[in-house]
């Protein structure tokens, strides 16, 4: 065992949190970059597998029922392999089979349905994959695709704000309660990452969809426009931001009536109200804060990436002039620096100011 892990065990033992000798464990954590390698390789293998299926069943696949049954059988075969063999080769084979089966089913859905039905079925399908396939990578990819297609679905129904708010809330809830259900922590983390990635996608998509109506009309001819007022989404996001702030404050024993809590709430509401004008920024900041709250550097990295994408795509947003964008950013910048000034003068010590 590594020295650092022995120190953690000793530290917890001294605090009387655990007892006894440190258990020996052969489990090695698989880092995120190895998981990305497995995911990309799985997709490459899936492409060859799809080619194999296409050549083997070429004319039969044109019948929707045959394609759906075949796709489902392949996915179930993949799940069976995952359950039966805890072995890297079979796990990767299961990926390839499952991804190929999923691609077949999605292709069939898109070839045989259209409009809102396509997207409803697709988001339901990926939600089921996320729930029932016992694999970390499947859950990340499945939840990403489920949330992304869900947001498109609600966009087509004219209520994009509800979809975005639900995804943001789900992301926040999962990460704030990351350690509450030890048995499901791995699955919860996988879905949390998938949803965080989906939020980045939704931010970029939102900018495109808000600006380029002709793209929407071309892609989704059943789209009848957004009828939900923008303030509903803003209100929901504001409530979620307050929820996140409250959950974090609760960890440190603060009560809702504390002056400290109330000032944090006021600052959160001001920042949220101003940041909402700059599309995607508040979501990115929430991801960053959720990452910091659990010392999760990968999530923090996603938050920073989301921030960069949001600011870049903000430039291309067409439903507001450059002057309007400049004003929004200037107000946001000044308010942020003003809050920093208040913080450094009334809250932080000199040493903390220097570190900040």
């Amino acid at each position, binding site marked *: 065992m590594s020295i*650092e*892990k022995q120190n*953690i*065990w000793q*530290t*917890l033992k001294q*605090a009387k*949190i*655990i007892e006894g000798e440190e258990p020996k464990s052969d*489990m*090695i*954590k*698989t*880092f995120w*970059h*190895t998981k990305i*390698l497995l995911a*990309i*390789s*799985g997709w*490459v*293998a899936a492409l*060859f*597998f799809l*080619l*194999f299926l296409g*050549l083997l069943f070429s004319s039969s696949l044109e019948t929707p029922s045959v394609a759906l049954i075949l796709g489902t059988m392949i996915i179930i075969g993949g799940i069976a392999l995952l359950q039966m063999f805890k072995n*890297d*080769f079979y796990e*990767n*084979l299961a990926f*390839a089979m499952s991804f190929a089966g999923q691609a077949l089913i999605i292709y069939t859905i898109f070839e045989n349905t259209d409009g809102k039905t396509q997207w409803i079925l697709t988001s339901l399908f990926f939600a089921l994959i996320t729930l029932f396939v016992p694999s970390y990578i499947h859950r990340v990819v499945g939840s990403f695709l489920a949330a992304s297609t869900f947001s498109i679905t609600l966009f087509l129904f004219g209520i994009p704000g509800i979809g975005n708010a639900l995804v943001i809330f789900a992301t926040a809830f999962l990460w704030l309660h990351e*350690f*509450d259900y*030890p*048995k499901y922590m*791995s699955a919860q983390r996988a879905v949390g990452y998938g949803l965080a990635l989906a939020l980045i996608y939704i931010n970029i998509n939102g900018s495109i969809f808000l600006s380029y109506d002709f793209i929407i009309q071309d892609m989704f001819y059943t789209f009848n426009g957004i009828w939900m007022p923008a303030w509903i989404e803003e209100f929901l996001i504001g409530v979620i931001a307050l929820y996140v702030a409250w959950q974090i404050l609760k*960890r*440190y024993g603060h009560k809702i009536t504390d002056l400290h809590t109330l000032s944090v709430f006021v600052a959160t509401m001001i920042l949220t109200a101003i940041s909402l004008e700059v599309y995607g920024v508040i979501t990115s*900041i929430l991801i960053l804060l959720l990452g*910091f*709250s*659990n*010392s999760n550097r990968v999530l923090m990295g996603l938050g920073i990436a989301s921030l960069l994408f949001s*600011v870049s795509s903000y430039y291309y947003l067409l439903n507001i002039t*450059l002057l309007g*964008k*400049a004003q929004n*950013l*200037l107000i*946001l*910048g000044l308010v*942020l*620096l003003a809050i920093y000034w208040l*913080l450094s003068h009334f809250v*932080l010590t000199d040493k*903390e100011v*220097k*570190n*900040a």
Partner: protein
Amino acid sequence: MAPIRDQLIPLIEEGHIPKEKIDEALSITKVFPNEKDWLVFIGQLLLWLGGIAIAFAVMFFIAYNLDNIGKFVQFGAIEALIAISVFTYWKFYNHPIASKVSLLSASILLGVLLALYGITYQTGADTWQLFFTWAMLITPWVIIGRFPALWIVWLVLLNTTIILYQSTFISSYFFLYDLTKILFIFNTLALLIWELSSSKFTWLNERWAVRLLALGSGTSITWLIMDAILDDKNMLSALIWVVWIVSFYFFYRYIKRDLFMLSEIALSSIIVAASFLLKVTNMNIGSAFVAAMLIAGMSAGAAFWLRNIQKGWQS
């Protein structure tokens, strides 16, 4: 060394820590930051976001008012902001965040000034010259800043210069191939110099920056060899790729342990193998199935290899 969070999670998942004591364990090990850490973090975030928001506000404002504001006002405003940023850097030289934010803002604003110069005076200069001049002018700041993110900005500017230069002057069938070769050479050299310098200049030891460079190097060489395989080009790329793989392996396995880099060479190998399979098989039913199995096997092998290396390092 795995972060403490990554070491604590298995203890929680395996049930070694009683459920009612999990929060306490997280607080003691600082996986849950304490309140002071939160305040410092929030302070840093406010400074960074505030500075960057204002820098972008200025850029957008200038872009909007280009036709309406007089030339002197346009130039004066940006130059004043650059001067303020530089003054802020001088004033808060010892402040770890304010100094970096101000230097980054000054570097971005210099680019805005050069763009304005090009648009105003219609010098006929090519776009690549803008980025090249921008990179050259901020070089002294990049050097004195000792700030990895600014170095990355500088390298991105030079990469952009290369791409734009090639697209301006080189129009051949092999344009993309030649461009990728140059980008590979440039980014690999940058990576080499960075790694060699980081032992002397410890502030360069930001793994995210090095990994970004490695991604630039790896993506270009992988693309080159894929192109060479699929389009029957000169196999010199294959030789360079092999040298690249071997160098990365020895350096990041034995000298500067980095599992991310080893994952990158594993993925590159799998992609090259897939390209090779696509080329040599006739894509009949049998060969498609075998190719799928081979790729699954290779990625399983890669994951097994990486986990073994990790295990060896940890013990």
